[in-house]
């Protein structure tokens, strides 16, 4: 039976496989995505199945990969490019910010960029330097981009299918720490999950816990622990970081009066700050406690021997929940 159940990275592979099968305009490109099947095997076997013209090993040049993806997209292909690790995505920034994000606007819709840039991100797998950062806020700040982060195999499949369908550029960040920690039965082939929508993973009335990506796991553990103590946590997986579905978050906090935001990325100027600001502005009178953030410190991502000190822990999240509940 375990064969039917998929890990997150297998779900990504399956989503790509089905997208290639369903739409001849979908193509994959990136470093080592072809013969090698991707360093995390996200594109395993796809070159053999769909051929060299649709699954393309590129030269080692991230700027070019991003620019080329834009060029393909303006021709109506739906390219899905892999940047091997998010730490190497910075060479793409000029292309993504200067072109992908604004092509529709600057041509008033004459040319568009229906493209996806996939990148594994985040810490916790004892990877070398530059392989563990979480910099989703950099992209979330850019008008015209979508930023999507799955937190389970089911959401990885459904959100990636939707990201590939989307007529605008999507930065699809895959939390590699949970690439293989969980198996789920995927819904039927081709099913999509909506973008621009938060997922309420558990309903509760005492406090709202807002998170995304790999941190969903620690938050689930805290949610279970608090349930034993009689505290009802409403757990929200943001999933699409930009554009942000504030309506779901606000509706939840309006109910609970308490909000804790958890993310692995550095705390300051992060996505948590945006959510906290919006909650404070909209729900100042409903809040029963100051909004709390549990996040990475504002330090360079430590090398792996010390990375556990950086990652938001179950203990830290539980403490933040206690603080808001004691108000």
């Amino acid at each position, binding site marked *: 039976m375990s064969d039917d159940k998929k890990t997150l990275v297998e779900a990504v592979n399956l989503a790509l496989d089905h997208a290639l099968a369903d739409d001849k305009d979908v*193509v994959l490109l990136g470093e080592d995505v072809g013969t090698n099947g991707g360093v995390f095997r996200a594109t395993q076997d796809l070159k053999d199945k769909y051929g060299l*013209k*649709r699954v*393309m090993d*590129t*030269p080692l*040049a991230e*700027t*070019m990969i*991003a*620019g*080329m*993806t*834009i*060029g*393909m*997209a*303006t*021709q*109506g*292909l739906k*390219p899905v490019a892999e940047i091997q690790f998010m730490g190497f995505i910075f*060479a793409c920034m*000029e*292309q993504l910010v*200067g*072109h992908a994000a604004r092509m*529709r*606007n*600057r*041509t*008033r*819709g*004459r*040319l*568009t960029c229906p493209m996806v840039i996939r990148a594994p991100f985040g810490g916790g797998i004892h990877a070398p330097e530059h392989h563990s950062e979480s910099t989703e806020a950099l992209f979330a700040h850019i*008008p*015209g981009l*979508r930023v999507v982060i799955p937190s389970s195999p089911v959401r990885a499949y459904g959100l990636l299918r939707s990201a590939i369908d*989307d*007529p*605008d550029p999507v930065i699809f960040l895959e939390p590699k720490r949970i690439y293989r920690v969980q198996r789920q039965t995927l819904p039927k082939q081709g099913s999509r999950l909506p973008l*621009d929508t938060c997922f309420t993973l558990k309903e509760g009335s005492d406090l709202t816990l807002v998170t995304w990506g790999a941190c969903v796991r620690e938050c689930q553990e805290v949610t279970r622990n608090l349930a034993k103590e009689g505290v009802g946590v409403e757990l929200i997986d943001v999933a699409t970081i930009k*554009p*942000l*579905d*504030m*309506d779901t978050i606000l509706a939840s906090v309006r109910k609970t009066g308490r909000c804790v935001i958890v993310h692995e990325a550095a705390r300051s100027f992060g996505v948590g700050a945006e959510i906290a600001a919006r909650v404070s502005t909209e729900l100042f009178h409903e809040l029963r406690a100051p909004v709390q953030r549990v996040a990475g410190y504002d330090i360079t991502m430590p090398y792996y021997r010390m990375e556990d000190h950086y990652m938001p822990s179950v203990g830290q999240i539980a403490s933040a929940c206690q603080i808001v509940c004691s108000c």
Partner: protein
Amino acid sequence: MPTTLDGGGLFRVHSSDVPFVRYLNTDGQPVQKLPPWAENGQQLVAYYKAMVKAREADRKAIAMQRTGQMGTYPSCLGQEAPGVVYGSLMKKDDVLAPYYRDMPGQLLRGVELSDVYLYWGGDERGSAGEGYGQDMPNCVPIATQACHAVGIASAFRIRDERRVVVTTCGDGATSKGDFLEALNLAGAWKVPVVFLIVNNQWAISIPRSAQCGADTLAQKGAGAGVPCVQVDGNDVIALHEVIGSAIERARHGKGAVVIEAITYRLCDHTTADDATRYRDNEDVRKAWEEEPVKRLQTYLYNHGLWSPEQEKMLQEQVAEEVQKAVETYQLTPPQSINDLFAYQYAETPVSLRQQLEEMQEGLNHE
């Protein structure tokens, strides 16, 4: 004895057997037998007319900027020739990935001059006109368009389409990674792209000599396995031969070519620049002796292909056409403020609809 970097021996830094192509010298005299297409003069007259129009359109753009009717504008004075040639030789369904000094080529591609003015007049619709077809909009971030070009060309290859991409850039752009990364891909994948470097000798204030230590910019193609050639960028006959061959070569699956067209920026970098701060007037005066319009005009007169009467008529016609474009530009109604939000995404997200409402409320209270 140690081997030195500049002394030969083990290491070499010099190149190069990059060919240089020229048909007309700076006095408009043929320096070699002209190709058959050039002999009856019909195409040459077309090139001449297109350059004269581009020059008048350019003059008018600067005049509008100086009188507050248009924003900062990068003139193409002196480098009209490459544009009118590639613009004539490309097929309509080929794609141009231009830089931002390509007005002459864009006009030949079918872009309305009023759209060019609209773009530099600060209106996004200037890149939206039907005349652009699938051509990319003006590319301001230097050299980034080269990467788009190889992507577009890859799309052609994936779909087995016999289309070609022409991408242009200045001399400064060849120093950027985007240019070199795109060139490298083009060599590895043999995609149908023509890289046209319009070497006008200046990247704002940095002269060609300070930009790169290589003998030619074209030879950067060699490092990527892409054939390369230099051409007199003020000689439409040479440009036609070289660009035409490169486009046909690409169209027939033989991959990319790098062309370095040698010309001179007779103007400031943009209307916000003052080139007298960094270059010698004497150099500019000498460059005027080589400029493309006069050179071709001399040839046409000398060969009885053009007359003063025709010249007079052309000037009048061009002035009228340009004036008409100016009027179209000036009479274009402003965009709605909704348009500021309408093209961020295919479907405007809730958060943006809320911000648009905020803006509208603010305007209502003013």
